[in-house]
């Protein structure tokens, strides 16, 4: 069995279904896989594209450190995180998270926990392109309170 990477940052569009199929394959002691897919919103024409910048070697290391913490906290068997970088069109997948555990509660909660981190604290820089130009986006108050639920 080949070992698949747990975390990938990619400038290429990805197919979430294929990632989930691969993640679920060959598990006879897992019991529960939870997954989440985040898509880029058009904001009724206000967002023509999203641009995400990462610092390779820093961003993936920060995500890995956090994900290993989540793995221990929720007793996960395994996880998979794929995050787009670069220019993303509305409707395209930005992020895929899957978690595997013995039972569903841990899988659901760990997936939620990882997403709150990725949305609010992961080292990305996000720019929204729209009809009136472009602007850098900082985390919303809602993103921060979502992440603080777990502190």
């Amino acid at each position: 069995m080949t070992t698949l990477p747990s975390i990938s940052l990619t400038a290429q569009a990805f197919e979430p279904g294929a990632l989930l199929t691969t993640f679920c394959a060959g598990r006879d002691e897992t019991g529960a896989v939870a997954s989440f897919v985040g898509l880029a919103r058009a904001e009724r024409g206000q967002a023509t594209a999203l641009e995400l910048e990462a610092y390779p070697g820093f961003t993936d290391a920060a995500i890995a450190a956090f994900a290993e913490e989540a793995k221990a906290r929720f007793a996960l068997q395994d996880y998979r995180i794929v995050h787009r970088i670069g220019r993303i069109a509305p409707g395209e997948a930005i992020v895929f998270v899957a978690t595997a555990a013995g039972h569903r509660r841990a899988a659901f909660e760990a997936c939620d926990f990882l997403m709150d981190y990725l949305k609010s604290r992961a080292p990305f820089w996000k720019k929204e392109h729209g009809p009136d130009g472009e602007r850098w986006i900082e985390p919303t108050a809602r993103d921060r309170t979502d992440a603080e639920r777990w502190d």
Partner: protein
Amino acid sequence: MARVLLFGRLADQAGWRDRTVEAGSIADLRRTLADGDAALGEALAGPGVQVAVDKAIVRGEAVLAAGTEVAFLPPMSGG
């Protein structure tokens, strides 16, 4: 010589994102960058801007050896 990386709005403001700069310390590097571009020097010292040396966050001073990578990171937005 340090390899300097800028991210997010800092790179847009400076008009570059990767440059080699002669500097022996972070303070030295900040001075050199501010001498060339005062507005950038101010932005690099602005609230929420973090510094990473060889991909680890550094608060305060650090000695820069040849080939050290220094990144200026504006507030992170999450994905």
